[in-house]
């Protein structure tokens, strides 16, 4: 185990850096410009039972130190992900990948997880119960501890792979939802998904986004995410994957000190395609500067 390596639910990562779902496609756009095997792993685009086009455009609006998106889970559907995306990915990525799963019903989560469970390339199932940009599903499962319990139990029943429940910050008490997932058998939780937000075009007097509302991500949300990771990891005994505005090696360190066992990088990939590679390359010097020998030693150091 190297000084950057961490364990996530029994699978060793060479480093804690994981591109977040929805900012890294199925990996190829990035594999064209650098060897993505330097990553700990990555979480692929949220996958549903059927193909989805997603929301009408515009789907992106800029904001101070961040952006609001309402893509709406565009993806080719789980069958095509298995028959087309995973074989293509295999050629450029040789580590277990994190499969991000979304759904509009418990049946759908189960259906998609059951299919992905059979894929050797998939290391973890990250179950998104926090998408703010779809109606009648997504986030509604992640804002109610009871519903979160049901999804977690149902998914755990159909897979032996580690299940990571991806949580929404759009709740009064994220710890309660996280705890419900832990009690229902989740192997880890990841947080935060985006914060519900919107922008208005003041010349047209209309919302910018086709979906009206969207989810805020980027540097602006980092302190909010950090606070939630801190509170959640203090209350839970399963690992917490921290994400939300992480853009630098120092952000990774701070997120781990808050209690994250691994860290996802989202919006930063959209501005700098090499962001994750640079963060990984910057980590050893950033650790040296702080006198940290092994990154594992700092998980929860601020507790």
């Amino acid at each position: 185990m190297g000084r950057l390596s961490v364990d996530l639910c029994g699978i060793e990562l060479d480093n804690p850096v994981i591109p977040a779902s929805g900012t890294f496609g199925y990996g190829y756009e990035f594999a064209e410009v650098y060897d993505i095997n330097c990553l700990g792993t990555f979480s692929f685009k949220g996958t549903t039972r059927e193909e989805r086009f997603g929301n009408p455009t515009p789907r992106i609006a800029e904001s101070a130190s961040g952006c609001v998106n309402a893509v709406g889970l565009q993806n080719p559907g789980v069958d095509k992900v298995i028959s087309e995306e995973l074989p293509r990915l295999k050629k450029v990525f040789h580590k277990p990948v994190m499969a991000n799963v979304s759904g509009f019903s418990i049946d759908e989560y189960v259906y998609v997880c059951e299919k992905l469970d059979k894929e050797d390339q998939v290391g973890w199932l990250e179950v998104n119960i926090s998408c703010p940009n779809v109606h009648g599903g997504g986030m509604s499962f992640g804002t109610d501890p009871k519903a979160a319990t049901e999804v977690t139990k149902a998914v755990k029943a159909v897979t032996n792979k580690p299940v990571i429940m991806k949580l929404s910050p759009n709740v009064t008490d994220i710890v309660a939802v996280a705890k419900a997932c832990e009690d229902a058998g989740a192997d880890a939780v990841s947080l935060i998904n985006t914060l519900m937000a919107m922008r208005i075009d003041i010349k047209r007097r209309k919302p910018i986004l086709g979906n009206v509302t969207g989810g805020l991500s980027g540097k602006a949300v980092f302190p909010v995410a950090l606070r939630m990771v801190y509170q959640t990891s203090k209350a839970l005994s399963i690992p917490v994957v921290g994400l939300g505005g992480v853009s630098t090696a120092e952000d990774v360190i701070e997120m781990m000190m808050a209690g994250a066992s691994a860290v996802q990088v989202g919006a930063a990939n959209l501005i700098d395609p090499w962001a994750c590679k640079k963060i990984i390359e910057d980590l050893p010097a950033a650790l040296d500067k702080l006198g940290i020998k092994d990154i594992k030693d700092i998980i929860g150091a601020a507790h």
Partner: protein
Amino acid sequence: MQQDIFRITENREIAPSVFRMKAEGDTKAITKPGQFVNILLDGFYLRRPISVCDVNENSITVIYKVVGDGTKLMSSMKEGESLDILTGLGNGYDLSLSGNRPLLLGGGVGVPPLYLLAKELRAQGKEVTAVLGFNTGEEVFYEKEFKDLGVKTLVTTADGSYGIKGFVTDAMNDIDYTYFYTCGPEPMLKAVYDLSETEGQFSFERRMGCGFGACMGCSCKTRNGFKRICKEGPVLMKEEIIWED
């Protein structure tokens, strides 16, 4: 796709609120007319996608209109300042389909990418006609530059203060062309689509997140499935376009 720090060598207003910027840097990722670059500006989170107007071994030219705070900041930048730019984005125009007498139809800041296209089509010996559409005479730019390439150039203005009165579509009926290429505001593209008598290629503009295919922020439906304007576009073939609304 490639990233480089470019050094600005020119940034000046060539028409009201329309600026031409030239910058030096590594341009080898730019391979086709119709591609775009994505420019990072201090204090703004997302990059600004802007089409390439001209390129050589070590320099690019972009023409942009000041429409918001980002382009306003860009317009205030001086020679010698540097910019972080992603280059070689988008599919670009396919020149192989042009026939011998291609027609280029540009509207406003849709004109710039057609300049590089015209230059390359002329280099192939094609008989190129361009119709450049603007709202008013004072907004007209690049008429001389197109003419200097040996392109038969017509200008239309919506208010009739210069050239032919009307839109680019008012000029296209009298032109004998084998194929067309167009870029401009979407209502203009739709009008060209409806009136054109040959096949052609359309360059679209969208709000983008990343500009290189990662975020699905600029997707559209086509007869060949879902496409990302930034990656499989911005140029779409006439026969695959589905107009929404």
